[in-house]
């Protein structure tokens, strides 16, 4: 596994160097290596297709503009996730301040959670997901809303993206210990809201 990881790193470095030389295919391949994870993270953090699309575009445009300056001081993924995390944090903070977007939309059957509404509109939605009880879903949404923006991002990166705390700390520009404390607080809130409920 270690050999495979090292080989992947070498391949990726070659790809980055090719992209730095201005080879569009290399840049596109680099984007395709990470873009699904980036979009998934933005989509689940921001819970809005439009915002996720904006973050996606801004992330990879910044990568494109700044790639020539990338000096391999850290791994490419750390650098990339630093951009993603900062943009998502900005969006979440803006939202918290402006409250520009309500969490619910009006439908014929009353007020429905915005994200649930989007899910139901999708033709390709997995029927299994629809079976998830509305109550559990509401409880999860409520507790996610209670997390601070940084707790939300750390929790997303650890629980859903499977990133190690060290990498999360590097991406957020904080120590591993600080990231751990952040995750600890987030899981305490989750447990308090969901532990006895499920």
């Amino acid at each position, binding site marked *: 596994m270690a050999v495979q990881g090292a080989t992947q790193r070498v391949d990726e470095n070659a790809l980055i160097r090719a992209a730095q030389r201005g080879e*569009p295919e290399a*840049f*596109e391949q680099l*984007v*395709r290596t990470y*873009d*699904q994870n980036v*979009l*998934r993270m933005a*989509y*689940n953090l921001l*819970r809005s*297709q439009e915002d*996720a*699309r904006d973050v*996606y*575009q801004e992330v*990879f*445009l910044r990568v*494109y*503009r700044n790639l020539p300056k990338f000096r391999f001081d850290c791994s490419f993924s750390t650098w990339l996730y630093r951009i993603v995390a900062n943009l998502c944090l900005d969006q979440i903070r803006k939202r918290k301040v402006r409250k520009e977007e309500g969490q619910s939309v009006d439908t014929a059957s009353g007020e429905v959670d915005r*994200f649930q509404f989007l*899910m139901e509109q*999708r033709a*390709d939605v*997995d029927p*299994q*997901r629809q*079976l*998830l009880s509305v109550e*559990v*879903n509401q409880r*999860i949404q409520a507790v996610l809303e209670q997390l601070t923006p940084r707790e939300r991002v750390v929790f997303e990166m*650890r*629980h*859903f993206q499977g990133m*190690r*705390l060290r990498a999360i700390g590097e991406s957020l520009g904080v120590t591993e210990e600080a990231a*751990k404390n952040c*995750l*600890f607080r987030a*899981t*305490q809130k*989750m*447990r308090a809201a*969901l*532990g*006895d*409920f*499920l």
Partner: protein
Amino acid sequence: MTCHDVQTNLSLYLYGELDFAREEELEQHLNECAFCQSALAREKGWHTALNSERRDVPLDLLAGCRQSLRAAIAAEAGERKRTSHFTFSWPKFAFVTPNRWSAQVALGSFLVFIGFGCARLIDRHDLTLGPRSGGTISMGVLNPSTAHIRDVEQSGPGKVRIVIDQIDEQQFEGPLDDEKIRRLLLAAARDSLDPGIRVDSVDLLKDQSGSDIRDALLYSVQHDPNAGVRLKALEGLRRFAADTPTRSALKVVLMHDQSPEVRSQAIDILVPAHHQKLELSPDLIDLLRGVVRSERQSDDYAQARALELLREINASVDEY
């Protein structure tokens, strides 16, 4: 380590983020404390519930994002070309003074490299002058399901450049125990977007031996969004029913899976049909009580079966 310490650190434990000494202490406590064991089960429960709440990115959103990004980058690249002041000056590079021999060596190496590179490129892509033997695409040949035209631009007077993204289909055939086939099936069981492919892959893998197979089945039964795939994985896990990781996963599935069929199968694997006196471990009894008390439909087979098993060992439903 106290119960409070253990319970506040359960998530970090599940994430594998505790240091070695603390993890050892916690596991030692867990081995001896039924209360904390059930707390661990609850902790795993909400972790699993969060995973099932996870939203997949709509495919059209990803496609739209890629298209917009491509357009934005093309625009930026065009802008760069127009404003670029950087020109490569051959004279500066070529006319090195004799005492800068290292630069001369570098120039020589560079030219040799270019020579070899061009030769390889011509060889690999058949870039010979005149009509190409295999690379041209005539009208109607492009298969829309495997290829699409990414870009069309005028490349000179009377010339056009067309860029095609094409998926190259590859086929692999071989015995199920072939390492490559096995790796591909494991990847398909986990990563394919098509639940039909996942269910077929799990079906083919489930009778193979190896801990990687068990791990793949455990992953599918806990994380696959499709109930059919989870049921297929459960079939394969029957033969691993005595293993601790399998039993832990089955307990989570029994408590939290949304599909009654999956829960029914899980309870039957955990406590198979028997003809002798039934003996159940305390944590399993607790789990069965949890199943009976859960707010599901009363006609749920798993709930009825759990009640039947508790009665068989004369255990009450409410007793802790």
